[in-house]
């Protein structure tokens, strides 16, 4: 169950959300197919985070979520959350050093050096104290920390909010590459309409607890 389902050339790694209901949100349903990105907008407090938290199974709520047709209940909470790569708007760093937040076995081999380079970070940043990181470094490292779990879905809550234009481009490119390679489903939350137009193929907005599909990523 750890390998993204890829039977023949048919992509199956899709995220299905059915009748999710949490506080003032929903019920709402949504399907994101594999190797596809959708955009999600809405005013602050409209329930974007509630939806992300529900999909990642962080709060009690109603509704079903399935990955490749397998219901969430087939997995333990931690197993599920590893598959659902949720990147909250603000990253948290509990250890004194960046390195402590990565799996020791994976940190040197694997893709991490490649991803660091792709986001304009030096390998040495792994040895840095977390207190010395800039907000932009934190945001990029949080993405790499998340990708290290090899999630099959990415829920990105304003992943470029504190980045300069050059790094915004880098993050968009890395997420795009990861999406194609892993054939994963991506939900991209942002207030930047042009960015959403670039990164996503379908667009949605949440108003008054309901999900509305839109032709383009602005009104």
């Amino acid at each position, binding site marked *: 169950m750890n390998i993204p389902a890829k039977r023949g050339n048919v992509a199956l790694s899709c995220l299905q959300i059915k009748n999710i209901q949490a506080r003032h949100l929903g019920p709402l349903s949504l399907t994101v197919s594999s190797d596809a990105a959708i955009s999600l907008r809405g005013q602050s407090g409209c329930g974007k985070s509630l939806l992300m938290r529900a999909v990642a199974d962080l709060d*009690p709520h109603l509704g079903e979520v399935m990955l490749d047709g397998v219901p969430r209940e087939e997995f333990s909470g931690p197993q599920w959350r590893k598959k659902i790569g949720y990147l*909250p708007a603000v990253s*948290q760093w*509990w250890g004194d050093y960046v390195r402590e937040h990565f799996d020791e076995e994976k940190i040197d081999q694997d893709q991490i050096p490649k991803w660091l380079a792709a986001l304009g970070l030096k390998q040495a940043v792994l040895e840095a104290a977390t207190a010395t990181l800039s907000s932009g470094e934190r945001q990029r490292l949080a993405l790499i920390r998340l990708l290290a779990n090899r999630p099959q879905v990415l829920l990105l809550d304003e992943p470029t909010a504190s980045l300069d234009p050059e790094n915004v481009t880098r993050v968009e490119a890395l997420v795009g590459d990861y999406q194609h390679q892993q054939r994963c489903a991506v939900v991209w939350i942002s207030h930047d309409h042009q960015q959403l137009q670039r990164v996503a193929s379908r667009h949605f907005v949440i108003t008054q607890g309901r999900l509305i599909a839109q032709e383009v990523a602005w009104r």
Partner: protein
Amino acid sequence: MALITLTPWDLSLAALLIVALAVLSFQMQLGLSRSILIAALRTVIQLMLIGLVLKFLFNTTHPGWIVLVSVMMLLAAGREVMVRQQRRFSGTRSFMLGTLSLFISTVVVTLLVLTVVISADPWYSPQYAIPLLGMLFGNTMNGIALGLDRLTQTAWQQRDVIEARLILGQTSQQSISDIRRESIRSGMIPIINAMAVAGIVSLPGVMTGQILAGAAPMDAVNYQILIMFMVTAGTGFGTIFAVTMGARHLFDDRERLRLDRLHKAIV
């Protein structure tokens, strides 16, 4: 060496110290005068009552009475653990958690000491059982209350960190491991410190009491060492048990952080 008996008049003189403290705290607007006087009054009434109970118990060695007194002490200590939590588990869970932890650590340690170490005859002799239980409940209660309070408060403040770790696929117990460790430490450190300074900075209560009552200093010291070991073991095991159970109950079966299971005490 005969014990000099204290008269009510002697105690009234000592009470003047408390009154003086209450007056000073009133003038300094510390907001403590009422608490000081009520607590002092409670000390007098509660100790008088337990004195009467002990007088009765020492004249009877029926185990039923000893069990009854022990259970009442346990419930009172369990309630005290609960009311010291700023954020408590809702419902009866908070009371049960504290009481169960007290019961497991204290009762096991006391039974062990009464039967194996002291070997009184009968082993439940109230003269040994009740004071030992009292010492243990009093100290273990402090450790458990400190540990649980630290656990729930820190979990509340660091909910974002705990959830960030859950989001990355850590198990509930991995995500709270640092907080759990710090909470257990904060429950145990006072008693470890007390052991470290015993005899140098402070003359502990049991020893002081026995010496005042005319016991030979070395006998008093031996009992004090026994009590220190019991209290430390009881506090340590009780705090570890309470904090571990508490840390589990902060999460549900999907390993989601459930701070809605806590409610803030109305102070």
